[in-house]
């Protein structure tokens, strides 16, 4: 077994286990911390795919910012334990699980029928990524060919910033009386 294969299986197992604990933990704070763990291991998987900069962005944006926000909000709420963590109804639950299972089977089956048989090799991006211009292709793609999307996202972020401030305008803490 090569080191790369071992690394992949290790990271895949880590990702799946932490992702499962996101949806199985009844305490939402544990869910959020598991999700942070998932994000970090997905970043590590990005590294094995030679997307170094994206791995860094994944850690900064998801693990370092979005999940910190989730954890902070959950601590603000301070939900001690959840009485109804999962949906009610034995029948509907079984039905949901069955439908998820069949969908998963369908997806995995589809992927195997349309398999890409090339082994994972050093791609042409990787050849660039190891040399001096670590992210030249990414930057050129982003700023020369997708510049409209880039500017649009800037405006979107502005709109969101204005919107969230407006949403949380009302005075008082999380437990304010009305």
């Amino acid at each position, binding site marked *: 077994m090569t080191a790369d294969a071992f690394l992949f299986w290790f990271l895949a197992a880590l990702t799946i286990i932490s992702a499962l604990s996101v949806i199985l933990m009844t305490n939402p704070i544990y869910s959020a911390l598991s999700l942070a763990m998932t994000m970090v291991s997905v970043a590590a998987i990005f590294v094995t795919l030679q997307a170094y900069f994206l791995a860094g962005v994944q850690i900064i944006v998801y693990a370092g910012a979005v999940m*910190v926000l989730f954890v902070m909000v959950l601590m603000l709420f301070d939900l001690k334990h959840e009485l109804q963590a999962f949906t009610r109804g034995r029948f509907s639950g079984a039905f949901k699980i069955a439908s998820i299972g069949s969908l998963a089977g369908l997806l995995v089956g589809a992927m195997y029928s349309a398999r890409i048989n090339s082994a994972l090799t050093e791609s042409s991006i990787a050849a660039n990524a190891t040399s001096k211009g670590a992210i030249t292709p990414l930057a050129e793609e982003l700023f020369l060919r997708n510049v409209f999307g880039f500017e649009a996202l800037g405006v979107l972020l502005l709109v969101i910033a204005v919107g969230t401030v407006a949403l949380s305008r009302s005075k008082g803490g999380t437990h304010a009386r009305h």
Partner: protein
Amino acid sequence: MTSMGTTGFEITVNLIKTVLVFLMMVQAVPILVWLERRGSAFIQNRFGPNRVGPLGLLQLLADAVKFLTKEDFAPEKGNRFMFYAAPVFALIPAAIAYMAIPMSVPLKLETATFLIQGFEINVGIVFVLGISSLAAYTILMAGWGSGSKFSLMGAMRASAQIISYELALGLSIVGVILMYGTFNFNEMILQQQGPLSFNAFGYTVATAALPNWGIFYQPVGMILFFAATFAESNRLPFDLAEGEAELVAGFHTEYGGFKMLMFFIGEYGHMMIASGLMATFFFGGYGIPYVSIQDVQNFGMNLFGSEIAANVFNTVVHFLCYNIKFGLFLWIFIWVRWTLPRFRYDQLMDLGWKTMLPWALVNTMVTAAVMFVTTYFMF
């Protein structure tokens, strides 16, 4: 394991190296604590710890014994798992982020080349920023796991402070990245070799009087970066998380003994990252001013006469040079702590959002505009 080496020997050495860097970090903490206590005593015209051993140096051992004999305590109200996990997690981001910073020229032996750093990462800056931003979880876990109001309030304050200053930190680095055009620390250091020289309006400006350090290109960026790192590592004047008049001790109110010590190691680890980054970005990293790497190599060749000995000499000399710069910044951290008073929380947030962030933006824009103008207009 892609670039941890090709042969078994290389991989083993590289893995042991990471452990060594970590142990070095852990070992530096008692020394820094001693320096801080003696330094603060010096600044405040006191004696400081001077009874145990020469210059009070054995105070460190006495402290370790004290930590070891403290009984292990966890509050009943808190969450035991989080309470114990938080100090362990406090070590990880600080240590891993520090390992990405190069400390000397790579050591060339007969068959292999070893980098004097934990591991080389080609997107170094992004890696360090990302990993050290994970420190916010430690604080939130400690605050929530203690089950105390003071801890929770302290954790909220500390994490809000850390994330606010991360913006100013991230933005002040953009100017640096613009100047060097890379994320890689080693390339940055190599670009800072030699005398000050740059191209402007089609001419090359050079002077041998100054080294080619980043501080001469990014003075504003340096000030902003250094100030933001103080807030990131929760040091005075920004240690609002543990403002003892209001919050007892912030997120580690309930901690004692070894668990407390581990938070300390984390905090000092962030100081070390900040000092290492300051040296790397703005002060030439391990480079020696006015002397190139090749000069040192030639000097070693004349001195020892063998290639390998010269390589070792080269590495050791640059390692010492890095540590002088590194120690200087650590001392500045301690010095500032005992010189400036603490901010108020609203002043802290105002400084981060309304002063440092706009200045960092201005710095970025001016840098980009100057680079644009000096490249496109010729005289």
